[in-house]
């Protein structure tokens, strides 16, 4: 009796797990039966959508592509170049028309993009660059250096140009982690009274940022500010600051809705908004133009400026866009 009910419960839970996925099947929307239809497929590959930034990117690219009459396939590479390479294999075997990619590594992505190019599939990069030109048709990134400069200036202002601070950096294999950190330091190192007492990588991860910030606050109780390489780490750091009941300035990077609402509640002090949705839409538009005319009439490397978000304008930010910008 006991055993039988256990089997039933186990089976039920498996069904329940499987049932979770019943709702969304946007991946199966293209039919392989007709070859011409398959030729109009746009494959969108990004890092894991558990960071709202990439979720916004995926959603914007998918919506824009479908608006222009393409079928879409959305894949996530979880920052693993191998998984990304498999995504490209899928795109090639399904004879995709174009790939929109937020890549998994500046060097590790080059061969996969080249493979697609050899198969006559153009790739349009968004958000992150690769260390080679002439492989992708376009590399549209937000100007991380300019954005980090903005964030650094605001942080220095909030810190009153003096005091101890800590920095949380992103994943070391991602160029943006280095570019942002350099951008911050390009500004902050000019202030002789601003002293960085700790620098740790939290690998873009919220839980890791939380635990590392807690330890940093222990080691340096007099710390006045924390500057983070992205918003998920800023959120983790702010959770630690709150738990320690301290008054520490936290500044992030991305402009994610969670951080914007925290800014409005006087929690996190500032972030730098990257126009994620706009960049994704630009990439799809250029892919469309390229497929129709064979060119984009634009340079391969394009950069879109970031916008500083602080309590003054946080109210007008929605889904990675500032109203009126």
């Amino acid at each position, binding site marked *: 009796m006991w055993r039988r009910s256990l089997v039933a419960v186990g089976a039920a839970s498996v069904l329940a797990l499987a049932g979770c996925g019943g709702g969304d099947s946007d991946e199966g929307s293209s039919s392989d039966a007709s070859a011409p239809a398959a030729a109009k497929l746009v494959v969108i590959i990004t890092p894991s959508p*558990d960071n709202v930034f990439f979720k916004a990117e995926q959603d914007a690219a998918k919506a824009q592509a479908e608006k222009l009459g393409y079928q879409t396939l959305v894949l996530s590479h979880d920052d693993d170049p191998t998984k990304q390479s498999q995504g490209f294999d899928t795109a090639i075997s399904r004879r995709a028309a174009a790939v929109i990619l937020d890549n998994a590594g500046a060097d590790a992505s080059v061969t996969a993009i080249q493979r697609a190019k050899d198969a006559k599939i153009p790739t349009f990069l968004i958000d992150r660059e690769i260390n080679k030109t002439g492989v992708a048709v376009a590399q549209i990134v937000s100007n991380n250096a300019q954005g980090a400069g903005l964030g650094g200036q605001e942080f220095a202002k909030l810190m009153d140009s003096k005091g101890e601070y800590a920095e949380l950096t992103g994943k070391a294999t991602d160029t943006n982690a280095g570019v942002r950190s350099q951008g911050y330091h390009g500004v902050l190192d000019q202030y002789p009274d601003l002293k960085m007492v700790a620098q740790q990588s939290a690998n873009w991860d919220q839980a890791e940022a939380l635990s590392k910030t807690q330890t940093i606050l222990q080691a340096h109780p007099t710390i006045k500010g924390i500057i983070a390489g992205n918003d998920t780490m800023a959120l983790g750091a702010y959770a630690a600051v709150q738990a320690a009941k301290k008054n520490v300035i936290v500044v992030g990077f991305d402009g994610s809705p969670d951080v914007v609402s925290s800014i409005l509640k006087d929690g996190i002090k500032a972030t730098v908004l990257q126009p994620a949705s706009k960049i994704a839409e630009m990439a799809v538009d250029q892919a469309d133009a390229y497929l129709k005319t064979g060119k984009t009439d634009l340079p391969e490397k394009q950069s879109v400026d970031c916008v500083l978000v602080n309590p003054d304008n946080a109210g007008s930010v929605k889904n990675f866009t500032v109203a009126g910008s």
Partner: protein
Amino acid sequence: MTDTHVAAPASGAATPQPDPPGNPVLARTALLLLRGRTLVVLVLLVIFFSSVSSEYLTQSNIILMTKHVAINAILAIGVTFVILTGGIDLSVGSIAGLASMVSGGLLFTGLGVPGGTLFFSVAVVILLGIVVGALVGAVNGLLITRFGVAPFIATLGMLYVARGAAQLHSDGGTYPDLAGSPERGNQGFGFIGVDSLLGIPVAVWIMVVVAAVAIVVTTKTPFGRQIYAVGGNERAAVLAGIRVNRIKIAVYVISGACAALAGLLLTSELGAAYPDTATTYELNAIAAAVLGGTALSGGRGTIIGTVMGAFVIGFLSDGLVLIGVSTFWQSVVKGAVIIFAVITEQAQQRLQSNLTKRTA
């Protein structure tokens, strides 16, 4: 505390304690040190880090480090039950992630039912999260006992299935705000992960309770003795009339429930649930168990050893962050300590059997 490793609880497989005549004192001292090596390592770590940083041995830092240890310790206690039977559970990190998403979803968006949305109180949400973990554990157990899948494979499969289910739950997104609201009657999820009782974080109290219950279960109950018997010699256990399958399913259920609890603590502290919660934590949990002297072949190990193992890993990684060592070196040092632990484990086995032989 010091004699915890000497106490091999009622396993039957434990080596008898002979008094070898003419045995050099040195060898016995060495054996004692090897047995208590987790404690020795822990003491050495504390001495080292407190000599480098004056902030290490402060009361607030010890409390904080213990809180960080709590999550891994609870995961590792669950895994220890499984390893004691000779199995392995690779799915605990993913189960923690799934429980995190289930509870986060219930708090943030509620449960969609015909005619509206249901919100549960925090206690119910926590309970449901743990039940989900236990059910996934039960599936693991059934796969292993009923379908004869090797534990490594069954739980490796579940590692992917549960992680995927966690991602499907929110379509990959994050539930950002778990504070709840008065009209939904679901405020207070922060209690288990953020709040403190008597100056000690609730998460640490929970770890203490889980560890205490686990110690009693493994050392003082027939069920506990049967776990050791199954891991020590499964065939003998069957012949002795132990219902091996039932024991095996039970340990995976325990492991799943512990994993879910750890996931909930992590989520509560973070105030947000995201599908990648606790990725690769299964390896930390297994490392803690091994470091604490649990044999992967089953039948040998203690809960207290596992908890000590979790303390070593936690105190080590927090210490490295505290003194500002880079992430890359943190990884190298942690791996080296685990390998060192296994080498000393084997040295202990050799020394022990040598001493035993000499008396025979």
